[in-house]
């Protein structure tokens, strides 16, 4: 008696592993030289020329903020900062697909996405310095920014996003919660719990896992034996896709379609973006050459998402060096202005900390408030 073909397949564990590659092809619209590899996909984005230029500006803004932040951190004028170079398409193009009513749940590297949503740069600077005034999530003209502060515990924002997503579904809102984490974050229990909960409730969530190659020094391959982080979404029963994370158009398309799917009440989606962190984990002393080679980093610089987008827009005739130079000057003037504004914010007081800890402070806290206030602290 011979084993049936089906049973043979089930018991062929090598096949089980190999099948994942077929299940998770990489979505791509632009080639590395900026040429379009999938015209229909480009058309499906619905992006106008003006929007394409706007997206390019967001990406450039992110790069300039990254360059300035790194310099300022070295001068001791910033606090904590996690560099973003290389991830502009993964971050800004995905965030570009969401709108004001959607709720953003960022990790600590996702500062540019919150700024895109209306969080002023001076508040981002205060956040980096540990000033809670930075976490007051309003625009300069007083509008609520539907975002959480950047999360340090890199799975926590996922379970919270699942809660918002459920709330949005219950309130029958045409909106979603979208949450970011990295490849390291996908190892956290909260990552699985969030996807499982959101799927069980068919809640309005879009989960974005930015596979940037390293969790500080731990390479992606050592982070998990899963061939694709997206496969983790399948375990929760949700559509899960892999996208070229340095291709802004592909990332936008995936995020836009995921948003539409989730906002329509179909449940969550997981997007894995394949990208690279070109710089250190943070400005607090990390040296990537301790755990990766210069050749590897140089190779990824050749795949810089800005290069690809610049080629694409230039070939389309809607972008040029002059526009770029002018915009970069504009961004830097804005950052200069925002640094001054952050520098001018009053120092924090311990008495305010105590007042903000509970709505009604306890007797002991009131005593502590009185002591600190008498000392002017």
């Amino acid at each position, binding site marked *: 008696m011979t084993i049936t073909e089906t049973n043979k397949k089930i018991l062929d564990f090598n096949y089980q592993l190999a099948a994942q590659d077929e299940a998770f092809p990489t979505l791509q619209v632009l080639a590395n030289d900026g040429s379009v590899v999938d015209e229909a996909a480009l058309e499906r984005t619905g992006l106008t020329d003006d929007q394409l230029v706007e997206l390019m500006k967001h990406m450039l803004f992110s790069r300039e903020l990254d360059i300035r932040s790194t310099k300022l951190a070295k001068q001791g004028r910033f606090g904590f900062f996690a560099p973003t170079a290389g991830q502009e398409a993964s971050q800004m193009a995905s965030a570009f697909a969401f709108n004001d009513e959607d*709720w953003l749940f960022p990790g600590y590297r996702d500062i540019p996405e919150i700024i895109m949503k209306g969080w002023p740069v001076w508040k981002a600077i205060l956040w980096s310095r540990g000033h*809670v*005034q930075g*976490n*007051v*999530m*309003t625009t300069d003209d007083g509008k609520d920014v*539907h975002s959480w*502060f950047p999360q340090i*515990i890199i799975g*926590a924002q*996922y*379970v*919270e*996003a*699942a*809660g*918002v*997503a*459920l*709330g*949005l579904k*219950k*309130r029958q*809102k045409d909106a979603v*919660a979208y949450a970011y984490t990295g490849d390291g974050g996908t190892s956290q*229990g*909260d990552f699985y*719990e*969030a996807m*499982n*909960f959101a799927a*069980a409730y068919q809640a309005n969530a879009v989960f974005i896992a930015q596979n940037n190659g390293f969790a500080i020094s731990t390479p992606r391959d050592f982070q998990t034996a899963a061939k694709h982080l997206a496969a983790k979404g399948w375990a929760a029963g949700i559509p899960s896709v892999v996208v070229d994370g340095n291709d802004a158009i592909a990332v936008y398309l995936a995020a836009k379609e995921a948003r539409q799917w989730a906002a329509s009440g179909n449940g969550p989606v997981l997007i894995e973006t394949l990208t690279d962190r070109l710089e250190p984990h943070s400005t607090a002393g990390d040296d990537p050459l301790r755990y990766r080679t210069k050749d590897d980093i140089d190779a990824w610089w050749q795949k810089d998402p800005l290069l690809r987008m610049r080629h694409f827009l230039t070939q389309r005739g809607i972008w040029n060096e002059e526009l770029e130079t002018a915009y970069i000057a504009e961004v830097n003037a804005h950052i200069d202005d925002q640094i001054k504004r952050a520098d001018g914010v009053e120092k924090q007081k311990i008495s305010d*900390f105590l*007042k*903000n*800890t*509970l*709505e*009604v402070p*306890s*007797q*002991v*806290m009131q005593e502590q408030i009185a002591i600190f206030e008498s000392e002017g602290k």
Partner: protein
Amino acid sequence: MTEKTYIAAVQDALDLALTKDDNTLIFGEDVGKNGGVFRATDGLQAKFGEERVFNTPLAESAIGGLAIGLTTQNYRPVMEIQFFGFLFEVMDSIAGQMSRNRFRFGGTRQMPIVVRSPYGGGTKTPEMHADNLEGMVAQIPGIRVVMPANPADAKGLLLSAIESNDPVVFLENIHLYRSMKGEVPEGYYTTPLDKAAIVREGQDVTIISYGGGVPVALKAADELGKQDINAEVLDLRTVSPLDIESIGASVEKTGRVVVVQEAQRMAGIGATVMAEISERFILSLKAPIGRVAAPDTVYPFGQAENDWMIKADDVIAKVKEIVDYD
């Protein structure tokens, strides 16, 4: 007034909260059709529907995250952690997130969350179910820890906790759920948070306790009364923050104190109460402060539980020692 069990009072409060405010949601493991493993939510899903009272998949951290996220849509989540021994699984949501968020957002966003959980022991649950971890939670800034000791307080304090815009860890004594009955006022009422209560008047010594320690203290006080020692029993009700004013008033009245807790002796609520008394009211004391607590071991389950847990006799012995001190 109606006589109710402690758990019936909890259920009454949940029913009234769901009736009063459509934004109140109850969720956790098995709280729906099953009515919770202790039946605290029995019948609530049938009455209020699956949108308001619903089961969650089995993952405590996500239950906490869900609660935090739901507040953005103006919901008032009442989440259940099935046993307090499962607290560690949800510790980041409680200690790392919900308790800090008012501070982190500079006081501009609120976290009106109630974390309900049965705690304590004496009901022969399996290992890792029963636990007295209130001291651990009480050390977290930005959160209240409320531990009612009788049915009337369980109802009034739970309604206050649900009304609070700050997160409250609301701990229900697993042993008292069905062993204790008491008169409970009808209808909606609240009992103020952060306020202790004198549950027995006395002049000779103050026994300070909370939650499941209170009935033990009262039993001891009744016995001591027969021996001409008139003990006052102070029920803290909210163990974080502490009602220092009420503690001080009673200490100044009796000059002698015994602190009684079900939890292990190391650190915890009793230690904080003793420290506050020592710092503020030491000149009113006529004797050292006594303490009755469980041994500093892992919480045992099964056979050893009864030997391990504090008893009225322990309290009586300690009170006599303090009263006899010259």
